Each structure stands twice: as structure tokens, then as C-alpha cells.
């Protein structure tokens, strides 16, 4: 299945702005992060903390809805999903 990945702020600098990745059916949010970490060496240390969870500096959205960086790591993705990955927000 194809997943659209949108990266912002520091993650845009690592991953590029927008890309599409091919994952096996049934893949989860964590699978996507693992896949991206394999493609981009700089990413793993930023994305995962020492316990293997998404680090507190990682924010995730699936189809523009915020995900919990711990509870939703095992959420199964679907064909055409748009996943956004970004660092802490700082508008205003």
C-alpha cells in the first residue's frame, strides 16, 4: 500500500517535504517510522527514544488528525493515508 508522508520543520530537513512510500498491507505507524529510519540514517535518533517509543519531540498526524505518540504507534495504516511528522509547534 502507498502512504503519503509529509514532513515539516526539522523532519522536512531530514526527509524532504513530501514523499510517498510503499509499505506492506497491515503496516503500522511504527512500521512506517522504522521504514523511514532505515532510509534516512539521521532520523532514528530523533524519532525514537531509548525505550523504542516515539520521542517527545515527534508529533504525528494521520489524515490531519493528531496521533498519540505512544498509544497510536500500533495503529494500522491504510492505502492512501496521509501521515505527517513534525517537531513541537511554535506558532504565534
Amino acid at each position, binding site marked *: 500500500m502507498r502512504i503519503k508522508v*509529509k514532513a*515539516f*520543520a*526539522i523532519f*522536512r530537513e531530514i526527509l524532504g517535504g513530501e514523499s510517498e512510500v510503499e509499505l506492506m498491507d497491515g503496516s503500522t505507524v511504527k512500521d512506517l517510522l522504522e521504514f523511514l529510519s532505515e532510509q534516512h540514517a539521521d532520523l532514528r535518533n530523533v524519532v525514537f527514544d531509548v525505550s523504542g517509543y516515539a520521542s517527545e*519531540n515527534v*508529533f504525528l*498526524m494521520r489524515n*490531519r488528525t493528531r496521533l498519540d505518540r505512544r498509544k497510536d504507534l500500533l495503529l494500522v495504516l491504510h492505502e492512501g493515508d496521509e501521515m*505527517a511528522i*513534525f*517537531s*513541537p*509547534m*511554535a*506558532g*504565534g
Partner: protein
Amino acid sequence: MKVMKWQYFPQWQGVKFLIEITEKDFSIDEVILNAKQEDVGAIVIFLGIVRNDGITSMEVESYRMAAISELECIRDEAMGKFGLRRVDIIHRVGSLNVGDNIALIVCSAPHRKMAFEGCSFILEELKSRVPIWKKEISEEGARWVGL
């Protein structure tokens, strides 16, 4: 009075509230003029500008559609919570210099307390919930705010 308002700014005719993410600068006067209504007794504005912390410029980036959705949610929450009559929010993106406008929040309410509290609420929620990022550029390098 209302007729005069739309004659001055026909591009906003029919727009009930303004939520905008734009590369262009904005006119505070225009937004305030549109915020004036007969049942409004207080308008509080927050204007965020680029502060000189030894930086040369700032890059502002957004996840546009998600940011607009979140701003609309925050606006609706604030209107319900504080009894605001109208909320307008503009946030700039792109390359900004020291002194440039970054963000404008205009809260209209019957009374000042509602307008002050509503504006403060919106600003704090914006900072923590809306996917917008700022990168400060200085002669020493660059850093993402919040990291």
C-alpha cells in the same frame, strides 16, 4: 455603517470570520473595522512580531490545511467558552525580518474581560496545537524554536 464597511473591503463580503495563513502582510485596521458590530463593546488584539534576539531573520512554516482546521477548532472553543462574538486570526508564513508581523488575533466580545481572556486562550492554544513552526536565522546558524 455596515454598508460602508463592505464598500471599503468588498473582498471580505460574506466572510463571517477570517482564518488565514498567508505569506502577505496584513492590515490590522481592516480586520478591526470588520470586527466592529453593534453588540460588541470590546475588541482585544494580539499582534506577534519578530523580536530581535540576535537573529537576522525568521522562517515560518505551516502544515496549511491542518493548521486552518485546528485554528477553526480553537476559534469555536473560544467563542463558546468566553462568549466571543467574533474571532479573526491571521498567521504569516515565509521569510520574515525583525519587526515584521507574524500573527494577529482579534477577539470581539460584549465586554472586555471576555475579549481579554478569549484572546489569551486562543494564543496559548495556537502555540501548542497549531502545526506552525518558526526557524530563527542568525549569523551563528539556525535553530527551530521549541526544539
